[in-house]
């Protein structure tokens, strides 16, 4: 009896085999579809402008996440003179690098190297760092603390020159301006949510921020992917730019843990 039931078992499995083959056939049929069907632009004679060679593909993220912070520490001796021993610059026009986001740091280094972001100083320096070096530096600066150190010669928290700009800055940082399509700063630069390539601003120097907002709005700096920051900066008034950068530069921005 048991002998007979064993003999019929393969026949019971047959429908399942059939189902599996059917699914496999569907899989093969569907995966063979043409995936390269992309409509080309009609007037392809227009010059193509590419803002940055960096794209947030899996390979890019893998390169950045392989950064070695100790190697970065050794490489950072070349950066210390301007960006400070502890990642806080003593000159308010230079950016602070302590606690910077890895992705944004790496992207800026690549853009300096490829000339997509122009700077007479940084372009030459960035040419000396490979993609791996930049990832190591990013890992190092990302782990530097943003807490204040009294022995450190830092320019960072500078009192607002015009404190009446604070309400304007708070409104833009927290709510943005929907009428003009300006999203809140904190929805991309943190701490509410983050977007790849957007640096944290909570411990950034005000003078540097104002410069960059100005460059974004007049197009001198155009290395943001898909015109994101340019679209926002060119709608800000001069008063708003000053208020925002002074507010962040005074260490009052959200997400700060330096005090």
């Amino acid at each position, binding site marked *: 009896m048991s002998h007979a039931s064993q003999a019929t078992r393969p026949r019971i499995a047959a429908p399942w085999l059939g189902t599996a083959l059917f699914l496999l056939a569907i899989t093969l049929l569907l995966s063979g579809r043409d995936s390269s069907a992309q409509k080309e632009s009609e007037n392809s004679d227009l010059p193509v402008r590419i803002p940055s060679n960096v794209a947030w593909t899996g390979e890019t993220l893998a390169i950045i996440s392989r950064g070695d912070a100790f190697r970065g520490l050794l490489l950072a001796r070349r950066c210390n003179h301007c960006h400070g021993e502890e990642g806080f610059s003593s000159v308010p026009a230079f950016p602070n690098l302590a606690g910077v986001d890895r992705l944004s740091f790496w992207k800026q280094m690549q853009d300096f190297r490829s000339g997509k972001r122009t700077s007479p100083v940084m372009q030459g320096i960035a040419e000396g760092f490979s993609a791996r070096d930049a990832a190591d530096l990013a890992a190092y600066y990302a782990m530097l603390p943003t807490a204040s150190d009294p022995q450190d010669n830092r320019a960072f928290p500078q009192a607002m020159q015009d404190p009446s700009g604070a309400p304007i800055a708070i409104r833009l940082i927290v709510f943005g301006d929907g009428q003009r399509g300006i999203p809140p700063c904190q929805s*991309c630069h943190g701490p509410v949510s983050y977007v790849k390539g957007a640096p944290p601003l909570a411990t950034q120097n005000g003078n540097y921020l104002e410069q960059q907002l100005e460059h974004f709005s007049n197009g001198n700096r155009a290395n943001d992917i898909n015109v994101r920051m340019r679209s926002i900066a060119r709608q800000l008034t001069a008063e708003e730019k000053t208020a925002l950068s002074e507010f962040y530069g005074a260490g009052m921005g959200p997400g700060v843990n330096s005090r």
Partner: protein
Amino acid sequence: MKKKIGFAAAMVLVGLALLSTRYYMVDLPVWHFFGGGNGPDPVTLHLRGEFVESNLGAAEGPAGSFTVRMIAQQFVFVPQCIVVPAGVPVTFRITSADAVHQLSFLGTDYGLKAVPGEVTEATFTFAKPGQFKIPCHEFCGAGHYAMRAHLDVVPRDQFASMLPGERRTCEPR
């Protein structure tokens, strides 16, 4: 025997229930695993293809056809201000660089969903000149409620004289 009939009936009911949600049970999984990839890669929009930043905006194609190319991304539309001619069909081609967004043209019946990895194409005709707001109508993240674009519908002759041969937007350059 009764047990078998009951079991078969239950199976039929379960099958009917699954069929009634065929979109979720069949179409969506098939689309998820095999259906994507017809459009451009959302992370390399700025490098190649039709959505490079110099190709965004309204373009006049052959035979007087108008095409508007747009990117929706967290949390701005690019270009943020688009200008189209009135009274002629305008084709919108829209994709997303990250999440799902939706454009709804306030004051009209028109709307468009922007899906990463897909190009949404639709042709609209705006009868009269005017200005429309285009808020994002699909929750896309923390800055969703401030995500907004503007549409400027201008008379046909005015549009032709604006910036011949270029991609037209009404943004300050």
